């Protein structure tokens, strides 16, 4: 965490609970950076999270109202709070398993309703806290604690999913793209309706060690190599694009 953002942390917070090399600390920093640049009042914000490593990004660290909910249900809790008190500025921060697998139904329905909140999905492509099981976001072939021979199933394209369900804005960036991420978070926090950001966040502990990224630095290097902008992606062949992660902002043609 950058020192100048300490005012946004709950007094007494001395460290994060994240593993060495985890991207969630970077994401925590970038969310608070965006809030700081927008000069938002933390007393008007509500951070809602689910269960898993990413659920601990706001709770208890952020010095604001935080609601740490059941596994998968963060968006449903957030919907009730936001609809009853529309003055609350609501941000849901949780993981890929939480928001898109067990909580997938709530995600698409929030997108359909265009509920006024920002959903930040920290995607580490695996179930981290429970010991590295395959997720709905794990790449084909990924070795996990439940796919020793490699994952058989295709991962969700979360931005397409959310846009397809009706959200006006979705973005995908990795924690290796901090400037783009801060700008995207700022856009979300100042745009009405359901805004969604998928943040690729490395998990060296559970994903890296099983998939030949021996150190946190290797995982960062992998993200830097594989992330291409959507503009760059248009110049790639289907074969070249296969292993790439297309990043950028996506908007709905419907809205």
């Amino acid at each position, binding site marked *: 965490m950058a020192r100048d953002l300490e005012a946004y942390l709950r007094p007494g917070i001395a460290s994060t609970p994240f593993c060495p090399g985890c991207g969630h600390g970077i994401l925590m920093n970038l969310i608070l950076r965006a809030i700081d640049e927008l000069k938002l009042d*933390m*007393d008007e914000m509500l951070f809602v999270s689910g269960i898993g490593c990413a659920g601990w990004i706001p709770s208890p660290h952020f010095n604001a*109202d935080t609601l740490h909910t059941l596994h998968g249900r963060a968006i449903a809790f957030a919907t009730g709070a936001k609809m009853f008190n529309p003055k609350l500025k609501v941000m849901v921060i949780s993981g890929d398993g939480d928001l898109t697998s067990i909580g997938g139904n709530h995600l698409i329905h929030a997108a359909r309703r265009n509920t006024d909140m920002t959903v930040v999905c920290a995607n580490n492509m695996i179930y981290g806290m429970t010991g590295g099981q395959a997720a709905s976001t794990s790449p084909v072939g990924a070795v996990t604690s439940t796919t020793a021979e490699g994952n058989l199933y295709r991962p969700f394209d979360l931005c397409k999913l959310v846009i397809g369900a009706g959200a006006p804005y979705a973005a995908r960036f990795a924690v290796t793209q901090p400037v783009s991420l801060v700008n995207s978070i700022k856009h979300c926090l100042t745009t009405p309706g359901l805004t969604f950001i998928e943040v690729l966040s490395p998990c060296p502990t559970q994903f890296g060690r099983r998939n030949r990224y021996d150190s946190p630095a290797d995982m960062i290097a992998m993200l830097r190599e594989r992330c291409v902008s959507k503009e760059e992606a248009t110049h790639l062949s289907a074969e070249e694009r296969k292993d790439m992660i297309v990043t950028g902002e996506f908007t709905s043609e419907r809205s």
Partner: protein
Amino acid sequence: MDPGTYYLSGNEAVAEGAIAAGCRYYGGYPITPSSDIMERISVRFNEVHGVFMQMEDEIASICSVIGAVWAGAKAMTATSGPGFSLMQEGIGYAALTETPLVIVDIQRAGPGTGQATRVASGDIMQAKWGSHGDYQVIALSPWSVQEMYELTIDAFNLAEQYRVPVFLMGEEALGHLRERLEVKPRIRVFDREKKKGAPPFGTEKDDGIPPMPAFGEGEKLLVTGSTHNERGIRKTDDPEAQARLVARINNKILKNRDKIIQTESYFADDAEVVIVSYGFTARSALFAAEELRKEGKKVGLLRLKTLWPFADTIVRDVSSTAKKLLVPEMNRGQLMGEVMKYAACEVIPYYQTDGEIIHPYRIIKEAGSLV
């Protein structure tokens, strides 16, 4: 509704009772035979400036209710067996986070999908033990349209007073029964206690109820379904924090049960056989007791308006003078087991799980044969 006399269904009376109690958030999902509560709320909330959300499923419904309550609402949902099953994880979360809310369960014949339009009281034990872990709830059992209204108000008051989920355990036959409802000019409404800066999750006493702030009040609240200290800080491996929190959320209900529990007695003083009954079945039981008294048979009725916490000492007292207790239920003896735990005399069950109400003549026959 203005004071006066109305002719409503039980489900409509629930919606009106909720509005009278101050409920202004409803999150729900359609399910027979409770949907008409949601339908009436969806219309009436436009008039009273409430927030109605039809959610994507019952899990989302209960979770949105909890979110709304922490945003300051009095809030509820209504459902039936399958939906009540889906809500159980949220109920445990509400119990642990001491979130006051009301769930109306209009019970239908189960298990499984069962018979959606038929009656049962099969969710009595689920109301007590449906979510994992050790916690307490309050469950009320109305027997008339009047009580569907009044006990809904009581349910909100108890939820606010004890910071606990409260269930109104209706039954299909009562939800769709139409009869007279008297709305009185004055009703008592209790609002949760607030105290700025006070710990929202702990008290010095081991049975205390902490004050409850809301989001947006500058309290920088930490609400979590993990074990936590009095300020909401997670304590996921601290034995003392776990022991203290679990003890308090149980004690605050159990130690106050004399204040919470409501029962009614009919012909009980000299009764040799006391029918212990609740809900719709108690209507048949009262008719049976009245008919048997006409024949000179000493039969009485103990009606439980509160199912949980259980009226243990009241049952014990009744059983110390009666010779036999008859427990007729639209399930396989769910509350009968609880009566047996505390009764000092013989307890005789009467089960009926055919999706029909228990007809008075069956109780007359059963109770009459015991005298």
